[in-house]
């Protein structure tokens, strides 16, 4: 078996997410992100994509990283998760790759606790290591419900 991943960068790290969980990629500079009051900090705001409201997650905040400076290359990955239209802003989408299962290690056991559930495994392409995210766990219940209630 093999998995196709959309690979993106947050800072120096590379992350991957299964293509089946991705609806598409947008250029962040083409959209204006509107802040939504009363939502958790990880929700950057909302954008209007072809007449539909999409909520934007900031993965930097979510993973407790220092936010990177905005660049021209910033992308928004539209996710195919849950009922609400959600997406996340990343530094850059670097690749779309196909990984054989042999090249994927499961998430190590010492990564217990709340953060571990985001991580499905570690993919290897030569020297590159790609942190594969679990699309279903990207949105926590609280976040999801916060969005869901707004989306109504």
């Amino acid at each position, binding site marked *: 078996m093999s998995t196709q991943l959309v690979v993106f960068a947050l800072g120096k790290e590379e992350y991957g997410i299964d293509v*089946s969980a991705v609806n598409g*990629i947008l*250029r962040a500079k083409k959209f204006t992100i509107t802040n939504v009051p009363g939502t958790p900090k990880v929700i950057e705001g909302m954008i209007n994509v072809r007449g539909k409201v999409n909520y934007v997650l900031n993965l930097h905040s979510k993973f407790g990283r220092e936010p990177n400076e905005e660049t*021209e*290359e910033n992308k928004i990955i539209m996710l195919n998760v849950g009922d609400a239209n959600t997406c996340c802003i990343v530094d850059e*989408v670097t690749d*779309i790759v196909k990984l054989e299962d042999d090249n994927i290690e499961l998430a190590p056991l010492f990564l217990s606790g709340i953060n571990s559930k985001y991580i499905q495994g570690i993919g290897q392409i030569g020297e590159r290591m790609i942190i594969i995210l679990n699309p279903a766990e990207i949105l926590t219940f609280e976040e999801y419900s916060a969005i869901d209630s707004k989306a109504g």
Partner: protein
Amino acid sequence: MAKDMQSAKSVGSGVDISKIKLSDVIDIDFLQKFQDDFATGVGLASVTVDPEGTPVTKPSSYIRRCNITHSSESGDKRCAESHRKGGEEAVRLGRPYVFECHSGLTDFAAPILLEGRLIGTILGGQVLFTPMEEEKNRKIAREIGVDEDEYVKVTQEAKILTKEAVEAAANVLFIVANSMSNDAYQQLKLKSVVDTLSDGAHQISATMEELAASASTVSANQANLNKEIKNVNTVTGKIDEVMDFIKDIADETRLLGLNAAIEAARAGEAGLGFGVVAQEIRNLSADSKQTVGKIKELTTIIKESVDNTVRMGAETTSTIEQQAAAIEEVTASVQEISSLTELLSELAKKA
């Protein structure tokens, strides 16, 4: 222009002494009057001749005996020969020479010299130190074929003077004529120098004007050049704008490739071919972006080059300005020299 200046330099050597005539340095009318008054006052006959022996003044106070001598063809010849010899001796000595003429009278020859060159001779005398022996007088009259009795009779009109008096009189004529002609000669030389100076000053003025004109031409050209170069900068800026646009298209193309790849992946087996196309699109966009980067590097080099050129142009402009200022200073100095030359010219004319 350089040739003109050289020829102007050769004029600086001054007056050509080999071409100066007595009339160039002494006013002949003045000399005639001086000679007449002197002859009357001292009682000595005199005449001034050019280096060829041709008289340039009328004879002053000639005694009748000499007129009779000149009336005979052989007498006239003998007189001329006698004058020539006396004149030559005077030139050789460089001072007045007192001698006895062919007819036994005492004569003198005073050379007029300019830097050692003979320009004329004042001949004079027609006197005696002691009364002439009658026999000698008659012999001469016979030789030149004139009436002996008449000749003896008019000989008595010749004044008896001492040798010292004749020498002193000759000296006076010598000194006056020589200092007059030498002064005039120096003045001619001065005038020539002043003329050369004046010519030179005019040449310099003209050259300075040309220089000033060319400096302003260079300045104008440089200004145009600077403008053109700045145009290049503007165009380069526009190229950069176009490049930004192309980069944007490349980014958009890449995104299209990424989304196409996602769609292809989701289509499973059916999307494999489409996935290859999507990959190609991404490669293409990557190439475009790289090309844009290279072009931008080139336009950056052009901009730097233009900036350097503009800076050097500014340096050139300031150099030209300095030159123009220097030219102005020189022009002012030359004008000063010109007015001094005019003053000198006035003085030379008066002197």
